């Protein structure tokens, strides 16, 4: 219809418009769903007269968020830097471990079943022990965060290092490349998108690790604030702290996800 009415509109312009509408839809639909959810929540709590301490309406949470913003930020900072540090250490550790596992059959046969077994441990249950081992300082939370988040990196990196086309490895052999050369110039670059997909999972695990660590022991941090607020039956403050945590988690995950997309474009196919 539109084409008939406006012959000047080229096919390319139409395609661009369709693309734009699609993007709008991709962003708009989930946002609208979230908005509707919040609206129902707000209306529901008001209509049913639910006490704020049981379930505060979103507006009350927002109010807390705004009024206690400096307080929230004071507590957010330690959580954020520890999550980022835990994540970074977990990533390096994961890549190194996966590299070792893929480098030698002997190492893999010796360690891999143990690594998998390690993974089966209900890690949250071990959190208190980290305090016993590492004390009450940030080391305990950092090491726990690394502990819960490094495994996805190991598995993803290993998959990336192993999934190199056989012919490509034959080529390296045919070119008389050393295994170190093959690792550096073929295996590792090939694993980059895989590593990032592992890092995506690790980013959320790292935050969970720090928060659980803060639940176990802390002097400051969003986990501390959540406990403090729950001791005071300050449900709105709990949710406001969780809100800050979500925004950080989302941004963190988003950055890693975008980086992953970029590495897929550069380094080849996505790990499926």
């Amino acid at each position: 219809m539109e084409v008939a009415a406006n012959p000047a509109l080229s096919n390319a312009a139409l395609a661009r418009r369709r693309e734009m509408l699609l993007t709008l839809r991709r962003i708009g639909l989930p946002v609208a769903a979230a908005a509707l959810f919040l609206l129902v929540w707000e209306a529901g709590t008001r209509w049913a007269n639910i006490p704020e301490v049981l379930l505060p309406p979103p507006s009350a949470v927002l109010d807390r968020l705004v009024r206690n913003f400096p307080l929230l930020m004071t507590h957010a900072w330690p959580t954020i830097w520890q999550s980022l540090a835990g994540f970074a250490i977990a990533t390096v550790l994961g890549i190194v471990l996966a590299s070792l596992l893929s480098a030698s059959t002997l190492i893999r046969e010796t360690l891999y079943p143990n690594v998998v077994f390690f993974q089966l441990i209900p890690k949250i249950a071990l959190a208190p022990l980290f305090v016993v081992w590492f004390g009450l300082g940030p080391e305990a939370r950092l090491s726990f965060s690394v502990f819960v988040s490094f495994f996805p990196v190991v598995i993803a990196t290993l998959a990336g290092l192993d999934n190199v086309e056989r012919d490509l490895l034959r080529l390296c052999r045919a070119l008389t490349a050393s295994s170190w050369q093959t690792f550096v110039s073929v295996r590792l670059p090939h694993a980059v998108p895989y590593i990032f997909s592992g890092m995506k999972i690790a980013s959320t695990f790292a935050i969970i690790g720090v928060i659980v660590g803060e639940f176990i022991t802390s002097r400051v941090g969003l986990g501390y604030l959540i406990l403090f607020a729950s001791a005071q039956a300050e449900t709105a403050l709990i949710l406001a702290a969780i809100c800050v945590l979500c925004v950080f988690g989302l941004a963190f995950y988003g950055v890693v996800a975008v980086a992953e997309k970029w590495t897929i474009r550069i380094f080849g196919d996505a790990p499926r």
Partner: protein
Amino acid sequence: MNEPRLPEKTAPADSAVPWLHPRPIAPDRNQAYLSLRHARKVYQTRSGDVEAVGLADFDIEAGEFVSILGPSGCGKSTLLSMVGGLEPVTEGEIFLEGTRVNAPRRDFGYIFQDPTLLPWKTVLDNVLFPIHTQKRQVADYEAEAHRLLEMVGLADFKAKRPRELSGGMRQRVALCRGLINDPKLLLMDEPFSALDAISRDDMNLALVRLWDKYHKTALFVTHSIREAVFLADRVLVMTARPSRIVADLKLPFARPRDVTVQETPEFNRICAWLREQIQAGYGRPAGPG
């Protein structure tokens, strides 16, 4: 020992044509450029030994382009791997210029069925990959890389990444990569079999054009009869079960070679004869010949 000779009775009617005569092995084989002497490959499996390459006993001259033609499973790729030093021989020996080949060599070129390009490197860097890997001076080879890419029509794609290229173009990059170190022997393992028919014809032509100017000793593994004949100076026919070389044929077509050669009766007759050899191979009873 089975000698790889043309059976007289299956020769075409006009056996006066010189290319159909069996090619004798020179008395002094040490003079040969590439020499396979009773090379054999046996895999040990749980259900007993499996003969992957039954017997390979032939010489190749310098500058000769040889197609190894056979059905899938006849061991032609394994044979190529053995020549390239990627697979140890179970029995026999392989020599290049009198030196025994038992490991990969820096002066070989390899092209596989898949282009096996590195997606994160540009076309030019992919071509130069062997130079980097073999720690040669990149500067010495850059001009050569540009020349090769121009020769296969990829002058405008040097800075592109493989994913921006079509399948045929990628395989051309692989071709350039195989040639970048000026190899003494180019080994091609069904390099065009993953391409569609049109790209494949295209690639055949590109390869022939390359060979018009650029003589290299080459082993080309394929299961396409027309491709084998069109590209090569000589065709070896392999059969499966048992894995044997059953025919060894010098082709009469001159270079520079043109597509029109495929229309000649000679070309078609050779193809027909080769097809017969392959089909006869299917009919053979299994077991040692």
